[in-house]
């Protein structure tokens, strides 16, 4: 085992010498090369360091859905970016239950995972799950509330029925409170996955994900209104990347270059949504709705881009924003206190991947 790995490293180092030269000629912005060979984007030394990390297992949020932090790693794999930085990545589909992802990462079964947002990280850390957040993509809550177009004020929902997927998302609850709605007058019911309960009038409002149900209803030609928590000053975030703290301490370059390849793929997929979704479709063996997923991706990237705080780079974890979100969760009774954010967040990792606002690729 050891000898094979050494042999591989030596071989990779040899190719690197050549690749490294051509790489530096192209300069940091030379992202148009589709894919190089093994280790073409890192130095021999860094390549060896990354290979020492072994297989890096990444658990997605939900299957191969074209969401931010699912589609981009999938594309990075397909585009060969992980190979370029000498990472052996294995992407495992998640079930949609973020707590499971956090446990898998904390236990070391997986090294990295995507999880709904910073709020989920803080809840899991408060529950004793030891993970760290290294990147976050969107800076708005992913949840939304859908109503028929004749609702023009959220207070009109008093005395009606609200449908949710098991629990009312705290961001929606906060939005309703902020709008002055008396929540006790609203009947809450758990509904299935079918958003048409709203159109059929079985519920008067329905929670959902900005990048899913509204799209499904729009595709069916239904007219609905979406109410977004951020418009009521409710903080939130979407698509946070978590990492096993020990893995990060032992193999910092592997985590850095994973995110580097992911961010590069994100950029590529923004221009080539269909291509990336096709990559995901190829992985998905249990059925895939390509058209729907292209829309999911486009919606999410729009949310991510439009919510990027000024002066920050894509993926950057913002200490202040996370604290705001944490205090909001304390206020909503979700966690007893904001955990020590210096232990949870790794805010300087993503910025270190950029130079003058540009993602550093290849890595010197």
């Amino acid at each position, binding site marked *: 085992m050891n000898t094979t790995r050494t042999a591989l490293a030596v071989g990779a180092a040899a190719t690197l010498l050549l690749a490294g030269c051509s790489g530096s000629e192209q300069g940091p912005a030379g992202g148009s090369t589709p894919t190089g060979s093994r280790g073409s984007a890192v130095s021999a030394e860094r390549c060896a360091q990354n290979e020492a990390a072994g297989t890096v297992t990444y*658990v997605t949020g*939900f*299957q191969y859905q074209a969401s931010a932090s699912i589609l981009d790693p999938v594309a990075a794999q397909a585009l060969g970016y992980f190979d370029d930085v000498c990472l052996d990545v294995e992407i495992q*589909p*998640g079930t949609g239950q973020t*707590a499971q992802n956090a446990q898998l990462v904390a236990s070391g*079964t997986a090294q990295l995972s995507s999880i709904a947002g910073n709020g989920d990280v803080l809840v899991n850390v408060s529950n004793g799950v030891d993970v760290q957040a290294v990147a976050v993509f969107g800076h708005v809550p992913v949840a939304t509330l859908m109503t028929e177009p004749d609702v023009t004020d959220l207070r009109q929902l008093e005395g009606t029925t609200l449908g949710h997927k098991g629990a009312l998302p705290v961001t929606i609850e906060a939005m309703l409170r902020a709008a002055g709605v008396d929540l006790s007058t609203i009947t809450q019911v758990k509904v299935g996955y079918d958003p*048409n309960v709203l159109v059929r009038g079985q519920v008067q409002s329905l929670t959902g994900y900005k990048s899913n149900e509204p799209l499904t209803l729009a595709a069916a030609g239904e007219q609905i209104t979406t109410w977004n928590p951020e418009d009521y000053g409710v903080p939130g975030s979407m698509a946070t990347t978590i990492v096993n703290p020990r893995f990060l301490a032992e193999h910092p370059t592997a985590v850095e270059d994973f995110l580097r390849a992911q961010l590069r793929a994100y950029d590529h997929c923004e221009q080539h949504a269909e291509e990336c979704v096709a990559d995901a479709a190829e992985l998905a063996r249990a*059925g895939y709705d390509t058209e729907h997923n292209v829309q999911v991706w486009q919606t999410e990237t729009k949310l991510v881009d439009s919510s990027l705080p000024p002066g920050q780079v894509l993926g950057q974890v913002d200490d202040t924003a996370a604290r705001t979100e944490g205090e909001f969760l304390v206020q909503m009774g979700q966690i007893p206190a904001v955990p020590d954010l210096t232990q949870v967040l790794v805010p300087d990792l993503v910025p270190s991947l950029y130079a003058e606002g540009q993602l550093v690729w290849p890595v010197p």
Partner: protein
Amino acid sequence: MRRLARVAHPRTWLPTVLAVVVVGLLWTWVARDNPYVLPTLPSVGRQFLDQPDLYLANAWTTLQEALLGLLAGGVCAVLLAVVVGESGLVRRAVTPLAVVLNVTPVVAIAPALVVAFGFGLTPKVLVTGLITFFPVLMNTVTGLRSVDRHVLQVFRTVDASRLDVLVRLRFPSALPYLFAALRVVFPLSLVGAVVAEFAAAGAQSGLGTLISVASANSQLDRVFAAIACLALMGSLMLLLVTTFERRALAWHESQHR
């Protein structure tokens, strides 16, 4: 020959056919006005015709998980039942644990199983094994103890060994009980596999994964096509078990009608 004639007689097949037709009509009636409650039967059928490979491949994954789990759970249950049957000490030690295991919602521990055993087939097989374990254990224990007291006395007067009693008396006596358990756990193993795919990260394929993905995308016809696959698989399994049972238990009163 006589059985063939019996199958061909309308009295044998007519009730089944009628029931299917009635349910089909009811279904069509509901689906016509409520496309989001039930997909129409033709749209479900079209799913199979359009993508037979999708359903075959995913059914194969689920079947593998189900059968491997069943094998693991069943073999462990029978072995434990033998030990429990031979030793009261072990029985008293094991029974409460088995009950705890039985009331544990396996969905709840599936994530822990992934943590413990990785993303591969193992956690799904374990979930299925855990679900199928208890019915087999309980029935086999009961079956092994169901040996007629007088037969045991006859065997004891010739100093039959425990192994002789086990092999020549207890196993055959337990067979009807074991088959009763198998009729339950074969279809149950499919439920186990699907639940495992729902609950355990790393499910790349399988009908459970297919249902999960199709649900998230509101593809009702695909959800029901997968359910139809499961129903078909469950029925075939039951048919298989019953056929084997009829051959193996020709001597047993349950097979005389």
